[in-house]
Each structure stands twice: as structure tokens, then as C-alpha cells.
């Protein structure tokens, strides 16, 4: 069967069971959009900015576990994807981006809307391809999906010149996607697994430190079983939230800069860290040389570059978290567990209950209260996407996540403007779930145009703006470390007295429901109304302006140098 390049792209996407693509057309992708016009299997979400398209594909991928797909035209269309690709790369999210390119004979000619897309996106993708022959298309797309979803997942970009979208060739239905330089290790080495397990069983004061790898490999059940049967406390990174039930008594919160006292206490005093799909990010370790001084590190990761990168690993196991944890559970099932680190675990849990997260409970409308109310009124079942900043930390701290893929956040790159489009992608993947976008007034305005996309496609998300009229996280640092010199952070009008803009009116301009909540007493009623509403709701919670995220470890300090700010 002879097909055009554009038809081959769509056929190949169907072959990968893609049901949605997010994107915007332009001169160099018109042939592809023309074929999309009559395609019945793939639904296009026309976004209002290509960055929105990339984040929607990312949110869709995080919520569903499938590969998210976005499409953009050449030049500015492609460059607008860059932040979205970098966001996905740092958080290991499977995504495929397809970009149009100027006609092959014009490539390198400074043609209209030409950019060196593969050059620009090289450092922000797991792999990228420039198609030079229509015959390569089918196989390249198969390889792109294979690369995106396997090993340590990540975004892959395919750049397709417009003439190749029009060129015709025989469609290769079952292309070979073997890549000789790419063979991810799934199964862990049996001897390594055995010695890892020995070390964990021998430890007096072990702690499990798990991250996003548990979620991407679907190893949450295995992790939970292992932790419970050995009685070891669990701390989860920002990317790992939901990999172990947030309501379990062994859960001690997140470690690091805005981590709990208990998690940081456990890491600094343990004799063994069992790292599962986590990469010892600088926000976790604080000052590396003072990090976990007594700990031996046992680490499972599918990516060998994550082993001994920041913190030396004594016993590495390279493999898929789920497969390796299963191998461990298999060994454990044949053994009697005689010793549990009961004294140590008790001590950690004591710190956890004595030094629980808190905030001032007075009559002031505080952001943490809003999040707790949402937790209560959604019975903890909502999927929470976030923007980036103070609200993101509060969303992690004051909502408990029992399920993987329930907390959707830009952890590695810390991309403001991520939350709203990601939430739309999440809702598309999980139409039956309540989806929140916990946001700040700053980041909401970075991709606010996507309210139009939500409206047009009848997507319901609740945009929870914890409006403090400033770039709160930077303001917090300026308050604590720069003598309250609030340089470039106040988002209100010149006097910064009022809250501005009027988000309620903005929502209404898009044909959506807008609400303004100024008092603590109005919170519950407003949330109930929002939950009952049909379409997207924008809620402007005008909260205390100088609220701080607590606890806090100052940048570059050891993680037991904790400031209590609440």
C-alpha cells in the first residue's frame, strides 16, 4: 500500500495506539494536518501555544503511563516546544514530538520559519531524528516510541520536512525497531540483588528512599510490600510521591530542602539508604559532603549514569525497579524475616509525629488550609497537577497521595506554566477523575491562554490559584537571605495592595466559571460549588501574602540544618 509521508505518520501513530495529539499547525505541517482532518482514530487538541501542547502531552503521559504526543510546525513552533521537552527529559517522561521542517532543498538556507530543530533540541531530548527519506518514516516513528517508553523514559523528537510529508512510498506495516546502540537492562544481576538484600537485612537503621523510577516502572505495589514486610520507613522524592501510600504509617514525607524533619533525620542518621529509582538530586542531598554520613547506599536504577553520580553507591543494581523488586520479593518469600529494625523505625516515626508539618491555624486565609480542604472534600481521590513554586511544595505537603500518577509536577526542570496545560492533558487521559491544578498567580499567567483549550474541548479542571500577588518562592528567599529586598517579585499594581489581575473576570472572558475567595469561611462552600460545576473553574484564593514554605534547608546547607518557619 503506497501512502504519503503524512499518511504514514498517522498510520504509525495509530499502530502505537495513540488516541490524542496536542498541537498547532503551521506552514510546514499543513500536509499532516490535512490528513488529520479526515482521521477518525486520532483526536487533535488544538492548543493556544506550542509550549501548552508539549505540557499537555507530558501530563497525558504522566497520568496514563502511555507516550504523549505533540505536534508543531517548523521554526517558532519547534522552538516553543523546547521548554516542554526539557521538562519531560528531566522528569523522565515518555513523549514523542513531531515537528514540521522546511522543504529538504531549503534546509540550511535560512528559509522562512526555519530553525535547526534537531540541533536546538539535542540536549533536551533522549534522541532526535531528522527525516531525509520518506522510506525511513515508519521505522523511525517505531524507534521513537520504543526509545521514549523503554529504559529510562524520555522525550524523542522527529523532524519531518514538508516535502517528505507529501512524498509517497510503500508503507512498512511492521518495521524493525531494533537499535544496536540501545539495550536497556531490565533484569537485575542476581548476585547484586542478593548482596543488596543481604545488606538491607543486616542494616540496623535502614531507610527506603524512592523516586520517580518506581512510578514509571509501575513498581508501587512491590515497593509497598517490601517496605511493609521489612518494616522500613519510606521517604519519597517529589517525583516519587504516590509510589508508596501517603497515609501509610511508614511514610515519613519528602526529604531535602522542603522535606520533613523526619525524612531528613532518617537520612542523616541511617546506616543504609535503599534508593529505588531516585537520583540523589541536589534538592534532596543539600550539601553532598555532609549528606547521610553513616549510610551505605544500595541503589536500583535502570540508568547506569544515575549510579554513583552525586553520592557513591556501594551496591548498585542496574535494572527496572519493578523487575528487580520482584526478584527481591521472590528471594524474601523463601526466607523467614527474623529481624526488623523496630527500634530505629519507632524512633523515626516518633520524629515524624512530633515534628509534623504545620501552619498557623488562625482566621487568616492561608494556602495550606485551602489544600487540606481540597484533600478532605475530594476524599483524597483527586489527581493534582501543580505549577512551580511555594504552592507546589504545599501541594506536596498538605495533600496525601495514596496512588502513583496522582501527583503531577515538574520536579527536575521546575517549569512555571506547566500545571494548567498538564492538568488538561491529565484530564484527557483520565476523564473520570477530578483534576486539580494547584497554582500560584505567577505561574498561572505563564500559560493562561490554555483556558481556551479547556473550554473548547469541554475539559474540566479546577484551577486553584493560591494568589499571594507575588513570585512567592523567590520572595521567601529574599525575605530570609536578602533582607526583605523584594526585587522583581511583586506581581500586583505599583502599590501591590490589591490582588491583580481579576482572575474571575479572566475566566469569564473564556466562558468559564470564575470565583474569588477572600475569607477562610468561604473556602468550603466555594470548593463544593467548584466540584459540582460542569466545566473548568478558576478559583482565585486571595491568601496571606508573606506565608512561607516550612521547614526549609537553605541552599547548599546540610539537610539537618533545618529552619522552622511556620
Amino acid at each position, binding site marked *: 500500500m503506497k501512502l504519503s509521508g503524512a499518511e504514514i505518520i498517522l498510520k504509525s501513530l495509530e499502530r502505537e495506539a495513540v488516541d490524542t495529539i496536542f498541537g498547532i499547525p503551521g506552514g510546514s505541517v499543513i500536509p499532516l494536518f490535512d490528513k488529520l482532518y479526515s482521521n477518525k482514530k486520532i483526536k487533535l487538541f488544538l492548543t493556544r501555544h506550542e509550549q501548552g501542547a508539549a505540557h499537555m502531552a507530558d501530563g497525558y503521559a504522566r497520568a496514563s503511563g502511555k507516550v504523549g504526543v505533540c505536534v508543531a510546525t517548523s521554526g517558532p513552533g519547534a522552538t516553543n516546544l523546547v521548554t516542554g521537552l526539557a521538562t519531560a527529559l528531566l522528569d523522565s517522561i515518555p513523549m514523542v514530538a513531531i515537528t514540521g521542517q522546511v522543504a529538504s532543498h531549503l534546509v540550511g538556507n535560512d528559509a522562512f520559519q526555519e530553525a535547526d530543530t*534537531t*540541533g536546538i533540541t*539535542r*540536549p533536551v531530548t*533522549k*534522541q*532526535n531524528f*531528522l527525516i531525509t527519506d520518506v522510506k525511513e518514516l515508519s521505522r523511525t516513528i517505531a524507534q521513537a516510541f520504543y*526509545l521514549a517508553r523503554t529504559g529510562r523514559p524520555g522525550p524523542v523528537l522527529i523532524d519531518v520536512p514538508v516535502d517528505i510529508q507529501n512524498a509517497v512510498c510503500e508503507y512498512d506495516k511492521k518495521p524493525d525497531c531494533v*537499535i*544496536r*546502540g*540501545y539495550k536497556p537492562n531490565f533484569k537485575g544481576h542476581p548476585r547484586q540483588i542478593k548482596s543488596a538484600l543481604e545488606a538491607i537485612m543486616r542494616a540496623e537503621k535502614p531507610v527506603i528512599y524512592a523516586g520517580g523510577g518506581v512510578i514509571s516502572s509501575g513498581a508501587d505495589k512491590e515497593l509497598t510490600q517490601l517496605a511493609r514486610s521489612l518494616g522500613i520507613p519510606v521517604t519519597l522524592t517529589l517525583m516519587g510521591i504516590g509510589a508508596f501510600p501517603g497515609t501509610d504509617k511508614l511514610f515519613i514525607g519528602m526529604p531535602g530542602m522542603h522535606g520533613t524533619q523526619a525524612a531528613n533525620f532518617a537520612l542523616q542518621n541511617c546506616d543504609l539508604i535503599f534508593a529505588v529509582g531516585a537520583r540523589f538530586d541536589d534538592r534532596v542531598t543539600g550539601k553532598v559532603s555532609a549528606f547521610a554520613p553513616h549510610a551505605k547506599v544500595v541503589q536500583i536504577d535502570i*540508568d*547506569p*549514569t544515575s*549510579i*554513583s*553520580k552525586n553520592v557513591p553507591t556501594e551496591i548498585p543494581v542496574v535494572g527496572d525497579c519493578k523487575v528487580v523488586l520482584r526478584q527481591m520479593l521472590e528471594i524474601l518469600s523463601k526466607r523467614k524475616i527474623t529481624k526488623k529494625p523496630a527500634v530505629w523505625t519507632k524512633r523515626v516515626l516518633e520524629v515524624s509525629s512530633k515534628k509534623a508539618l504545620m501552619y498557623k491555624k488562625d482566621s487568616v486565609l492561608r494556602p495550606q488550609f485551602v489544600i487540606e480542604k481540597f484533600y478532605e472534600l475530594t476524599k483524597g481521590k483527586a489527581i493534582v497537577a501543580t505549577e512551580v513554586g511555594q504552592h507546589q511544595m504545599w501541594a506536596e505537603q498538605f495533600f496525601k497521595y495514596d496512588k502513583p500518577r496522582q501527583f503531577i509536577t515538574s520536579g527536575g526542570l521546575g517549569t512555571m506554566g506547566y500545571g494548567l496545560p498538564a492538568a488538561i492533558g491529565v484530564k484527557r487521559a483520565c476523564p473520570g477523575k477530578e483534576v486539580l491544578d494547584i497554582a500560584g498567580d505567577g505561574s498561572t499567567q505563564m500559560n493562561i491562554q490554555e483556558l481556551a483549550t479547556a473550554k473548547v474541548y469541554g475539559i474540566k479542571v479546577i484551577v486553584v490559584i493560591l494568589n499571594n500577588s507575588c513570585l512567592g518562592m523567590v520572595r521567601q528567599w529574599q525575605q530570609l537571605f536578602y533582607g526583605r529586598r523584594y526585587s522583581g517579585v511583586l506581581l500586583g499594581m505599583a502599590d501591590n495592595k490589591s490582588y491583580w489581575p481579576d482572575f474571575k473576570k479572566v475566566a469569564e472572558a473564556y466562558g468559564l466559571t470564575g470565583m474569588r475567595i477572600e475569607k477562610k469561611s468561604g473556602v468550603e462552600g466555594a470548593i463544593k460549588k467548584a466540584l459540582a460545576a460542569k466545566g473548568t473553574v478558576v478559583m482565585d484564593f486571595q491568601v496571606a501574602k508573606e506565608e512561607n514554605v516550612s521547614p526549609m534547608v537553605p541552599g547548599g546547607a546540610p539537610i539537618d540544618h533545618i529552619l522552622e518557619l511556620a
Partner: protein
Amino acid sequence: MKHTIAAMVENRPGVLAKISGLFSARAFNIMSLTVGETEIHDVSRMTIVVKGDDKTLEQVVKQLNKLPDVIKVIDFKNEEFIDRDLMLIKVNASKSARSEIIEIANIFRANILDMSTDTITLELTGKETKLEGVLKLLRPYGIKEMVRAGVVAMSRGRK
């Protein structure tokens, strides 16, 4: 510490940029890099010489291995290997200096490629230390132009 690494890579556009990007993204300076064909038609071989501590190097080797376009990486750190560089050097050679330069060339088994009324161009292959030694001897005559191809390396023995 100087390290020599070889990488077999897919022979296609963009691969060199991906590899050099790995080094530049880590502020790692490449001392020499060569690319050439191999016994397999669609595989190229790169030889990269870098300076850096062991830990950084270990990370670079892992990152190289991670690239889908890289088929195999050889780190010569723990291996016996042979390495050679090639140098072309154009040196000032007045009538009186000519025979001395030819003598140096003979001792170091350099080929004389070209000669003019006041220059001699030599070709020299060998280990870096040898190349540097010859350079030192020729410098007093005045070096007009010098170019080196970069190191290529291979393991010793059957491997």
C-alpha cells in the same frame, strides 16, 4: 589525568554533535577527537582524548554508553593499548639549516613530503611524546605551520 576513549558510533549526520555535546554540557574540554571509518561500513569510530578526574571520566563513559547512537565504548584506562598521532609540520629551512633538519627527520623516521627554497614539510607518525620531542628540536628553526590529526588507539592483542 589524560584519558583515551574509543566509541563505535552510527555513521550518520548529527552523531558527532551529540557526542561533543555530552562533553561541552559538562564543561569537559576535549584534547583531541578523531572520526573515521571502520571495518563495518555504517559504523564510525571516534577516538577521544580528554583531561579530567576519574569520577568525571566514569560519568562521561556512562553517558556515552547511554546514547542510542553509540554502539560500543572502549575505555583504555584498564587496558594495554597502542596509540598513534600523525603530524604535518612545515619548518623554516634556509640553505644552511637544511641538512640538519633532514638529519632530525631521518633519526625520527619522518618523511619529507615537500621542500621549497626556504621550507621543508615533514610527516611524522608516532606516540604523542615522540611528536612533542621532534617539535622541540625543530622549534629553533621556526615552525611556519603545524597540524596534528589527533590520536587513534586500539587495544593490544587479540581483543
